[in-house]
C-alpha cells in the first residue's frame, strides 16, 4: 500500500532582513526576502528519508502563503519532494494559527494522506501549535516534537527527548507528527534536484477550492491579532565599570542588579 506523506512548510521572512509591521500590524514582507523556514527543512528531510526507505511513498509539500511562497515549495521539490500544493488567496491575509490550520487541514484532506509531517514551529510566528491543531481538525493521532521518526506496518514511531525522560512513541496511521531541529541535518538541494523540480507539478488552490468561507480565515477570522507594535528602543550605551579597587564588587552588583547572575 502506498504511503502518502504530506509535509506542511512555511515561507518565512529571512531573519537577517529588516522586518517591520505594515499599517494593519501584519508582517510587512515587501522589503524582506523570504525562504523555506529552516525548522520545516527538518520535516522535509524526515519525509524524504522515510520515502527513500521504501519504494511506494509519495511526498507532497504543502504551503499556505502569498505568491512568493512558491519559492519554499520549489526548494522542497529541489530537495526531492514529489509534488507540491500551494494554497493562495487574498482573503488569507492576516490568518492566525486557527485560520492556517483550517486551510492546511482542508488541503491535506483534499490531497489525501497517511502521514502529515510538520516542523516544530515556524521561525517567524513561532506559536508551535499548528501540528496539534491539525491533528484535532483531521481527527487523527498526533505525535509531536520527535527527534527520530520511522514508519512501518501502518504505524509511525518516534522518539521524543524531554528534559527528564526520553519517550518512545507510536501512533497508528493516519497521523500527524512534528519533528525537531535535532532530527538530523536537512540535505542541500542539488543542481540535479533543482533541474528535476522544474518538471514537478505545483497545484494551486484557493479558498473556493477548499470550501472555506473568507470570514473563517484572514484577519477577520483570526482569534489572535496584534493590537499594537512599537519599534525596539535604540540600544543604549553600556555601563562602564572602572576598577578603582572595588571593580570586582561593582561588576558583581551590576550583574546581580540586571539579574544576569
Amino acid at each position, binding site marked *: 500500500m502506498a504511503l502518502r506523506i504530506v509535509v506542511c512548510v512555511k515561507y518565512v521572512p529571512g531573519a537577517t532582513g529588516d522586518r517591520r509591521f505594515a499599517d494593519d500590524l501584519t508582517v510587512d514582507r515587501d522589503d524582506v526576502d523570504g525562504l523555506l523556514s529552516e525548522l520545516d527543512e527538518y520535516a522535509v528531510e524526515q519525509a524524504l528519508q522515510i520515502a527513500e526507505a521504501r519504494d511506494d511513498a509519495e511526498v507532497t509539500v504543502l504551503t499556505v502563503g502569498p505568491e512568493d511562497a512558491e519559492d519554499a515549495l*520549489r*526548494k522542497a521539490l*529541489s530537495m526531492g519532494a514529489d509534488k507540491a500544493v500551494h494554497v493562495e488567496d487574498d482573503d488569507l491575509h492576516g490568518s492566525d494559527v486557527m485560520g492556517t490550520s483550517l486551510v492546511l487541514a482542508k488541503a491535506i484532506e483534499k490531497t489525501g494522506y497517511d502521514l502529515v509531517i510538520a516542523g516544530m514551529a515556524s521561525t517567524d510566528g513561532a506559536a508551535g501549535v499548528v501540528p496539534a491543531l491539525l491533528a484535532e481538525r483531521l481527527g487523527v493521532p498526533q505525535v509531536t516534537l520527535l527527534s527520530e521518526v520511522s514508519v512501518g506496518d501502518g504505524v509511525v514511531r518516534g522518539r521524543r527527548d524531554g528534559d527528564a525522560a526520553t519517550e518512545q512513541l507510536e501512533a497508528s496511521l493516519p497521523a500527524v507528527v512534528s519533528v525537531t531541529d535535532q532530527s538530523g541535518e536537512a540535505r*542541500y*538541494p*542539488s*543542481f*540535479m*534536484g*533543482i*533541474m528535476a523540480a*522544474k518538471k514537478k507539478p505545483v497545484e494551486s488552490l484557493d479558498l473556493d477550492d477548499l470550501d472555506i468561507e473568507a470570514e473563517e480565515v484572514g484577519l477577520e477570522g483570526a482569534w489572535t491579532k496584534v493590537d499594537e507594535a512599537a519599534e525596539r528602543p535604540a540600544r543604549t550605551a553600556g555601563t562602564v565599570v572602572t576598577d578603582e579597587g572595588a571593580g570586582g564588587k561593582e561588576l558583581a552588583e551590576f550583574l546581580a542588579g540586571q539579574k544576569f547572575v
Partner: protein
Amino acid sequence: MTSTPYLLPPMYDEFRAVARTVAEKELGPRAAEVDERGGFPHDNYATLVAAGLHAPGIPEEYGGDGVDAIAAAIAVEEVARVCASSSTVQTSNKLGVVPLLLAGTAEQRQRYLPEVAAGEALLAYAISEREAGSDVAAMRCRAVADGDDWVLDGVKTWITSAGVARYLIVFAVTDPEAGSRGISAFVVHADDAGISYGEPERKMGLKGSVTREVYFDDCRIPGDRLLGERGKGMRLALGTLDHTRVSVGAQALGIAQGALDAAVDYVRERRQFGRAVAEFQGVQFMLADMATKVESARQMVYAAGARSHARSADLTYFGAAAKCLASDVAMAVTTDAVQLLGGYGYTKDFPVERMMRDAKITQIYEGTNQIQRIVMARQLLRTR
C-alpha cells in the same frame, strides 16, 4: 514587470544559492587550512560530491545534473569565491569530461562519465610537457601501436589532480612526421602498468590542489582507449580548451568576487582617523573600479558559457576572451584587496593574500593570457 532575455531566469539564482550555501557553510571555513596543509583536499572533495557540485554539467543520460555551461560556471564561481583550490576539482573534471563528450564513443562515455558524475572517479588532463607548454605541438610523449594495443612513453608536466585522478586524458604523438596532425588522445587508467608520478610541485598558490608530473614507461593500453580519431588529438585538445576556459574564467571570477567581498567587509569595519576607511573617497574609488571589473568579467564568462552550451562558432573567441579578462581582473582585484586591507591583508590571518596567490595561476594555465590574445586576434583577423 517587463522581462528581458538578457537577465538570467530565476532558476540560476537557485543554483547560486545552493552553491553559495555549501561553499560558505563547509568549504569557506576550511579554506585557510586547505591552503596551509597543501595537497588534495579529500574532505572538500567529499563535500562537493555530497552536494553534487564536483562535476557540474555532465548530461543527465550519464547520471549528471545536465545543467548548462552558465549554471556550471556559477557552481565553479561560488566554490572559487571561498576556496579556489577546491574549485580545481570542478575544472579538472571538466577538462576530462569535455573531450569524452566531444570525441568519445558511446561506449567510452558510458564507461567513464557515470563514475565521474557519481563522484567515484576524478579526471585529469595531461597535455603539457617540460618543453611543450604554450607550444603544445612540440610534445614528445609517444604512443606507438603494437598489435591492438598502444604503448605510451614520455613525461607530462603540471598535471592537476595527478595521482588522485582515476582516469587521465593523455595526448601523445602517434605520427611524428605529421607534426600537429600526428597527435592523438587516449584514456589512461591510473592503475595501468607503467604509469607513475613525480613529487607534488611546490606552488605559489592553489596549494590545496595537487600538481605532479606523470611518467609513462612502456605503459600498455588497449586499442579501445584511443579517444577520437588518430591524428585529431591537437584539434580535440584545442576544442576542449574552448569550453574549459569558461570554467577557468568562472574560477577567476569567483576568486575576484571573494576578494572584493572581503575588502568591502574590511573597509566598513576598519577605522582610521576617527572614521571607517570606507568613508574615504580614495577607498571608494578603488572599490567601485574593482566591482565594475568583477561584473564585466562575470558578463563575459556567462556570455562565453552561453556559447559553450550552444557550441557556437564564436566560442573560440569568447572562451579565450572570458578567461583572459576574468583572470586579469582576478589578479588586479585581489592585488587591490590586499592593498585595502593594508598590513593585515599581507598576513595569512586574512584570506586576501591567499586569493592573490591563487589568482595568478588563472593568468597562466589552460593557455597563458598571451596565448589567449593570440587566439583572439587570430579570430578577429580571419578572412570573413
